[in-house]
Structure formats: structure tokens, C-alpha cells
């Protein structure tokens, strides 16, 4: 189990993390979700031992590792831009972690090769061991990076925006595949993302961060359905803010005949299996969006419709955040 206690970190005058506490259970797949500048990557790097907190402690299974370097923490780290060794073959990349061990702990050359090929099979890149990183696609490179991190049998796998540099399709395949791998290998994994869809799809628990603080920790379901703050409601999923601090998901809005908020329809288009309607909230300088079932006839442009939230959250103090 990993515990973080009162983690504080500043870069110069800029406070990156403001006293965070967090526990990660064994075998858990945890997402650190937040906008850029929220401190999520800094937190991941502190867990890894690539950065060090100004105050607070990092505990791995009850043992204080706060002052240990990354090499001593036995973690696997996967970087957004793969960070492969360009001058080494794929197999040498994967075997690197074993080959730098002290002589008495180092497996033989043949054993390292065998292990590298085993891991390449695991990440479905068997047969590419003799190629060089420049010859692989982005998705393949990220899988090599993953195999390389797994080669040292880490107790903890840390991934910094692992799919950030990949295109949407590859990203989706790789995501599903990583989820499988995590389960199969019984790892504890923490990954950083700014993509809420990715966090909700992959993680057992999502840690939503903003401005160096944890806003909410919970399952994907909890974070989406029961946001703890206006920030979470806004950042995770789409949200419309109606007068009175009412936060509603676009799919939780319905059109009623008269007793609702009047909206002047500005745009209507297909989104997935629904109609997406955008319009201006009459009397407020504010845009709202909502979904209508596709079997309904959508309202015409310029028409005024009345809407009502079916399900909502109220965050009083958040009017300032309104779009």
C-alpha cells in the first residue's frame, strides 16, 4: 500500500502541491485527473522519486521512502513521449533494467534476452526485438516503454499521460489493453491524465486535482454522478450551469412546455445517438447545451424552448465559474 502524507511542493514561489494526503490500495488502478497546472504530474514524480517534496512523507508498505532515489524505489515509470533509448534495439531497451544491475544480481546475457522477448510477447510485439525505436509507430513505442518498465518487476507502475501523444484510435485500443494487462499482472498502477474520459474508463478510483489540491477521490461513477464541488462537476463530464448555481449534465435536461428556463436555440447537430442542442439562456448571458433523443423532432434555429433539469447538483458559490 502506498501512503502520501501532507505532501507539499513549491517551484520557486509557485505552490505546486498544497499538503496532499492519499492512500493507494494494492492492486488498484488509480487515475490522477486534472487540468494542466493542477499538480498531478508533480505528484506522480514525487511518488516515483523523480521529484522530492518540500514537506510530507511517502510510504510504501509502511516504509518511509521519501528520501529514496527513483532507482531504489522499484517502480516502473512510463513517460508520455516514451523516452526510449534510440541507439538500442527494442530487445536491448526492454532488457536495460536487468543489464544495469550489480554483477551478482544480474542475470546472464541469454537470460536477459529471453526475459526481454517474453515481455515483448506480452505486449504483443514479439518478433520486433531486433528493430530500433525509430522503426516503430507511436503505439508500438509506448508498448515497448511499458515492457521495459515491467522488466524490472516493479511493485508499482506509474504512467505519465501514457496515451497523450497517440491518436484517438490507437489510444482507445491501448487503453483497453492496458486495463487487461493491469488485471493480469496484479499490478498497482497510477496514471496521470487530463482526459476525463480516459480516467473514467480505466481507473478503479479517480483522484480529481485542481491547483495543487485534491478535489475529490472516488470511483468513476461517484465522481461523475456525485461531484463534490463545482470544479469536479465542471471538469468531469459536460456541465451546464443554470441560475442559482444549478449544475446539470446535458443529458439530464428535458424540454417542457412552459414552466422552465427559456432558451433561444442557436445550433442543433447530431452527437452520437442524440441531438445536441446549443442555445442562449434568455435573460442571462450564458450558453447551455442539452441532449434530445434522436426520435424527437429537434427545435428549429431561433426558436425559444423551455428546459428543466431532471437531475442536478447545486453549488452555491460557483456563479463566478459559470461559463
Amino acid at each position: 500500500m502506498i501512503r502520501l502524507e501532507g505532501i507539499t511542493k513549491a517551484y520557486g514561489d509557485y505552490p505546486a502541491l498544497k499538503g496532499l494526503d492519499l492512500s493507494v490500495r494494492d492492486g488498484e488502478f488509480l487515475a490522477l485527473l486534472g487540468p494542466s497546472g493542477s499538480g498531478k504530474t508533480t505528484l506522480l514524480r514525487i511518488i516515483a522519486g523523480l521529484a522530492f517534496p518540500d514537506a510530507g512523507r511517502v510510504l510504501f508498505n509502511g516504509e518511509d521512502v521519501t528520501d529514496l532515489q527513483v532507482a531504489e524505489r522499484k517502480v516502473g515509470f512510463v513517460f508520455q513521449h516514451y523516452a526510449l533509448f534510440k541507439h538500442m534495439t527494442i530487445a536491448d531497451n526492454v532488457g536495460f533494467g536487468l543489464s544495469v544491475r550489480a554483477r551478482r544480481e544480474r542475470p546472464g546475457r541469454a537470460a536477459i534476452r529471453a526475459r526481454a522477448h517474453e515481455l515483448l510477447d506480452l505486449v504483443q510485439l514479439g518478433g520486433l526485438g531486433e528493430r530500433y525505436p525509430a522503426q516503430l509507430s507511436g503505439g508500438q513505442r509506448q508498448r515497448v516503454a511499458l515492457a521495459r518498465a515491467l522488466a524490472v518487476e516493479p511493485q508499482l507502475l506509474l504512467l505519465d499521460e501514457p496515451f497523450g501523444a497517440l491518436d484517438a484510435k490507437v489510444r482507445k485500443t491501448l487503453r483497453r489493453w492496458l486495463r487487461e494487462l493491469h488485471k493480469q499482472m496484479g499490478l498497482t498502477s497510477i496514471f496521470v491524465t487530463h482526459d476525463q474520459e480516459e480516467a473514467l474508463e480505466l481507473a478503479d478510483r479517480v483522484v480529481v486535482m485542481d491547483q495543487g489540491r485534491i478535489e475529490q477521490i472516488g470511483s468513476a461513477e461517484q465522481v461523475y454522478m456525485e461531484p463534490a464541488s463545482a470544479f469536479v462537476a465542471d471538469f468531469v463530464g459536460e456541465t451546464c450551469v443554470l441560475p442559482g448555481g444549478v449544475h446539470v449534465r446535458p443529458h439530464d435536461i428535458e424540454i417542457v412546455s412552459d414552466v422552465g428556463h427559456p432558451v433561444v436555440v442557436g445550433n442543433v447537430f447530431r452527437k452520437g445517438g442524440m441531438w445536441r442542442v446549443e442555445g442562449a439562456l434568455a435573460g442571462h448571458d450564458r450558453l447551455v447545451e442539452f441532449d434530445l433523443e434522436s426520435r424527437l423532432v429537434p427545435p428549429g434555429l431561433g426558436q425559444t424552448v423551455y428546459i428543466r433539469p431532471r437531475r442536478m447538483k447545486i453549488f452555491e458559490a460557483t456563479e463566478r465559474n459559470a461559463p
Partner: protein
Amino acid sequence: MEMSSNALALAPPRAIALPRSGRRRARRSVIPGFGLTMGLTLAWLSLIVLIPLSTVFVRSAGMGWTRFAEAAFAPRALAAYQISFATSLGAAAINAVFGLLTAWVLVRYDFAGRRIVNALVDLPFALPTAVAGIALTAIYASNGWIGGLLAPLGITLAYNPVGIMLAMIFVGLPFIVRSLEPVLEDFNAEVEEAARSLGARPVQVFVRVILPEILPALLTGFALAFARGLGEYGSVIFIAGNMPFKSEIAPLLIVTHLEQYDYAGASAIATVMLLAAFALLLVINLIQAWSRRRMER
């Protein structure tokens, strides 16, 4: 990497850089076509490099093999070649180590006076070499500041091959530093962190990860510094002592021949120097190309 793929996605299809295999196919470019540019390049190189150098061969060809061999392979000439090549290789090697260190410090650390140190590195480029030679001699000769401290210990730095190397190190340093700087700046810190996260110790990170990636640039700098040292005359002759068989460099021997109006003898030695230098530079370039290719395959 992202940048380039983004750039490709945004650019109209016509402007997409062709893959390496298609390099020779015509593409739009601000510089006119291959025929014209190549023609100009060859003409220019001929005027500036090939024709002047070929006169060296023409001169020495006119003298007949026996006289050529007599001049080119005289014991004194052989000693001079040996001194020239050994000292310039040695100087380039020492420069490779300390130049790498300098470039590393300049790129990796932000310290007060960094810009001044940065400007200092280029000084050997600008300084008249004779000035450098006189200054080096004044300091390293056994009555100089530093030479004076070492003289009681029996260490002499001037008027011997060590002095020659000192002068060559001085003129060659900027080549190493300036070749390495851009590569070190481009070196991705994440790659280093990845190596450390896999358990590599700092020495292993340097030897197994950083060094191979900067090797092509280091070799380029080495070749340049070596070539510069080999051709260096002005600064070396002040500090070398110029004793035949001990501290006489080949360029000086050439000048000696010229001063005696022995143009044939001078060009014979020059021919040997040219061929040997060309062969060595070619080898270094091949190694460099090989190490670069490994990364781009």
C-alpha cells in the same frame, strides 16, 4: 516527435517531406533544383579547395619518385609526421573529454557568468594564433606562472610535444564544445530519467545512454579539432621548441623547406600530410555516419 507529426498533418500534402527513400524525387524547395545547386557546389569546392590542393600534387609529381621519396620519407620528415599526428590526435582526445565537460556545464547548469564562459569558449577562434602561442609560452614555459610552479617538480610543459599539445588543445576546444552543445540541448531529460528509474547508476546512465546518443556529435567535434590541430602552425611554433626529431611539427618542416626555396621538398611533405589527414578524417566520418545511422534506422 509530436511537433513533426503535427506539422505534417497541418501542411498541405504537396509540402510533406518525403521519406528518406524518396529523397531524390523532385520536391518543392526554396533552393533551385539538384542540378544547379550541385554544379555550383562542385565549382565552388574546386575553386576554393580542390584546385589549390591539386597544385601540391602537381608540384610533387614533377619531381620523380626517387626525389619525392627522399624528401617525403626522410628521417626528419617521418619524425615530424609522427609528432604532428600524435600530438593532434592526443590534443583532440583531451579536448573531447574537457570539451564535453564544458559543453555539459554550459547546457545543464544555469550559473552566474554563464554567458561570459560561453563567450570565452569562442575566443580561440578569434585570437590570432601567434598571440595565443606567445601567451601560452609565457605562462607554461619554465619561467612562466604555471610552468614555474611545475619546473621544480621536473615537469616541463613548453618546448616539447606536451607544449605542442597545449597549443593544439587551445585552438581545438571550441570545435568540441560547439558541436556538442546543440545535441546536449536536444537530449531529452526523460530518457535520462527513464534510465534512472530502471535502476541505472549515474555512471551507467552516462556511458550507456547519454554517450551513445551524443557520440556522432562528439566524433564530429573530434574530427574538426584534430584537423585544426594538424594544420595549426602559428601558435605551435612558439611553444614547441622546434627541435628536429623531438618537437618539430610537419607544417614547420614545410615552411623550413620553403624558406630554403625547396618547393618540391615542401610539396612532397605536404602531399603525405594531405593524404594521411584525408584518410584519417574519412575514417572518422565513416565511424560517425555509422553511429548516427544506428539511431535513425
